[in-house]
């Protein structure tokens, strides 16, 4: 699907409001992260530890999964296993229908997006209410998240005011942020209290206690998971950590990398449903552990991607993301991490553009708090795409021709001797403004006119003259 990605990218590039919104958010995130790291001299050590924790868990995933299931079950939670997105959707809808649920509140979870939960709930005739402020915004707009930390980061304050005016009854009295937040609170509060089921994601699954851990900045996860009768957690199996201490080690990395904060506002642990004597909490707790390609990654060259803690730093620092935003990527996860994950989830044939649409500048890997070598993984996808013949014919032919020429130094010299003067014919003064077959270049920039004689020619002539 070469055209769709390029079309989406082109549309995004033509939208100045989108660019403004992206610049505001990612620019802030970049500055705050830099400041947070400057005040955290142990960052490198913390990063090495985080990486080691994730690698350890990934290497012993079966062990920790069993441990987690045992401990979560002992706490009264019901653990379900989903091999893929369809199975995950089916499990969640089955629980909802069995409980005769009419209204479901949901706290942000990218995994829910990954498995297509919003659609599945709609198809089952269940009303779904997003409780995260940003998710609420995109639900009003009928969109998908465009960033894993700020799902509505592509929308400006002004656009949000419009959405609230149209979507809230009664509409907010003014357009200042405080009034708008009040308005959203009022609308959402009713839903919190009348929901039958709350669905949340998890940032960590803690093996030795069987608890799940969710962090938010708004406290909406608490309101989503506490009042309803049933709480469903959906999480990828790579979210496991051995213990609470390990979760905190990763949390320090996550928060600083994501928002530049030192701590999230809310960090909640859910360990089973309400017990006799508990003041509140759901009567039932279900945990759906989702594989969806993850064990396959375990066995191949994308294994390191399982370290990802979904902080979003890679996209905030990506030159491509910052030009086109998250929707242009077309998958659940955007940016560099998404370009590695989307081919796993959607297949390489449908997403071969993503690993290619990267300049390989390495900034994503530099900022990744768990040291994922994103460019190396993107190159692995390119290699696979080349091997499977998914790369477009003209590119294959061009690279092949170039390689054939470059493998024959004498022929290569001859070609430059003929080619350079020919190419010079397209130039006026020192620049070429239009060159056949190089339209991608000259559409946007001039090309310096090549030398009349290559370095090699000139050098050889000098050497001869010296002798």
């Amino acid at each position, binding site marked *: 699907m070469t055209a769709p990605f390029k079309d989406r990218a082109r549309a995004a*590039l033509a939208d100045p409001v989108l660019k403004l919104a992206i610049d505001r958010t990612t620019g802030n995130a970049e500055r705050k992260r830099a400041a947070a790291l400057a005040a955290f001299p142990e960052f490198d050590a913390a990063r090495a530890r985080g990486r080691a924790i994730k690698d350890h868990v990934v290497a012993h995933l079966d062990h920790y999964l069993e441990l987690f299931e045992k401990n979560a079950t002992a706490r009264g939670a019901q653990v379900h296993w989903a091999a893929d997105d369809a199975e995950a959707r089916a499990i969640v809808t089955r629980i909802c229908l069995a409980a005769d649920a009419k209204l479901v509140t949901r706290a942000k979870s990218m995994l829910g997006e990954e498995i297509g939960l919003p659609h599945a709930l709609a198809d089952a005739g269940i009303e779904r209410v997003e409780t995260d402020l940003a998710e609420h915004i995109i639900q009003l707009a009928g969109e998908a998240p465009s960033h894993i930390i700020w799902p509505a980061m592509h929308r400006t304050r002004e656009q949000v005011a419009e959405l609230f005016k149209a979507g809230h009854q009664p509409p907010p009295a003014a357009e200042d942020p405080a009034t708008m937040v009040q308005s959203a609170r009022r609308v959402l509060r009713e839903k919190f209290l009348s929901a039958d089921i709350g669905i949340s994601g998890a940032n960590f699954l803690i093996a030795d206690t069987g608890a799940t851990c969710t962090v938010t900045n708004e406290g909406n996860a608490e309101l989503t998971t506490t009042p309803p009768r049933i709480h469903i957690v959906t999480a990828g199996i790579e979210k496991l950590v051995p213990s609470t201490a390990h979760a905190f080690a990763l949390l320090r990395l996550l928060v600083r990398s994501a928002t530049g904060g030192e701590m999230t506002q809310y960090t909640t642990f859910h360990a089973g449903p309400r017990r006799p004597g508990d003041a509140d909490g759901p009567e039932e707790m279900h945990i759906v552990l989702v594989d969806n390609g993850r064990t396959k990654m375990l066995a191949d060259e994308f294994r390191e991607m399982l370290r990802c803690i979904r902080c979003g730093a890679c996209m905030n620092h990506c030159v491509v993301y910052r030009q086109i935003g998250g929707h242009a990527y077309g998958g659940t996860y955007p940016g560099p991490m998404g370009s590695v994950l989307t081919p796993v989830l959607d297949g390489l044939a449908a997403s071969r553009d993503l690993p290619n649409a990267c300049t390989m500048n*390495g*900034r994503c890997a530099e900022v990744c708090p768990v040291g994922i070598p994103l460019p190396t993984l993107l190159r692995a996808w390119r290699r696979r795409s080349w091997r499977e013949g998914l*790369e477009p014919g003209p590119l294959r032919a061009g690279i092949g021709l170039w390689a054939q020429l470059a493998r024959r130094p004498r022929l290569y010299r001859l070609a430059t001797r003929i080619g*350079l003067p020919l190419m010079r014919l397209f130039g006026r003064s020192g*620049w070429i403004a239009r060159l056949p077959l190089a339209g991608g270049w000259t559409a946007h*920039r001039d090309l310096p006119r090549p030398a009349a004689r290559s*370095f090699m020619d000139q050098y050889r002539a000098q050497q001869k003259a010296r002798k």
Partner: protein
Amino acid sequence: MPGEPKPTVGLFVTCLVDAIRPQIGFATLQLLEEAGCVVEVPQAQTCCGQPALNSGDDRDAAHLARQTIAAFEGYDHVVLPSGSCAATMVHGYPELLAGDPDWAARARAMAAKTHEITSFLADVMGYAPAGRRLQASATYHDSCSGLRELGIAAQPRALLSHVEGLEMRGLPGNDVCCGFGGTFCVKYADISNAIVTEKAEAIEETGAELLLAGDLGCLMNMAGKLNRRGAKTRCFHTVEVLAGRAEGPAIGEEAP
């Protein structure tokens, strides 16, 4: 060091320098000789294979890697006026040939003695240019591969500080990619254009007369955009300034 044999250097010229701007090659050659090296330019060299490597065409890339290794095995050092081609040899070759019993060790040996020119001059040879003058203001863009794969940041700046009269100005976002990315700039021309446009704006805002960088690919991208925008910024490879050759025509200027 009198009495000690001079190190031999095989100069890899890079395909872009060879075709587009040979004076970068000559400036590199001059600096290496001034630093006390015996320099040769092996004739069997062409392209380091980066376009194939970055496109996922490992077979062709491996062929070019073997060809390049064979051509440069006899020297104490391999030096290039490009961070990205140097990074291809330092990191790409050993990875490409890791599974090849005949070539894995040779690739590692090549990687161990391959250097980008400014890091070679500063770190290995302890060289500093003497008696260079250039009355101009300049700004410097850190090209990504050199910066992140080889740690090149301090060396070019230290070397440039020896050029009398040269006023260096900071470039906001100096470590942000210019959008070149090899084949990326033609495969995703619109995105690349948006990125280089921002870069050009940042360069113009510094008000510097010159833009310097250590990779001709990135320089062509930025210079081509600056020219299309009608900016007067003149673009040079760092070695041209270091070798005292920045009085002549800049990239895209015709020799009189």
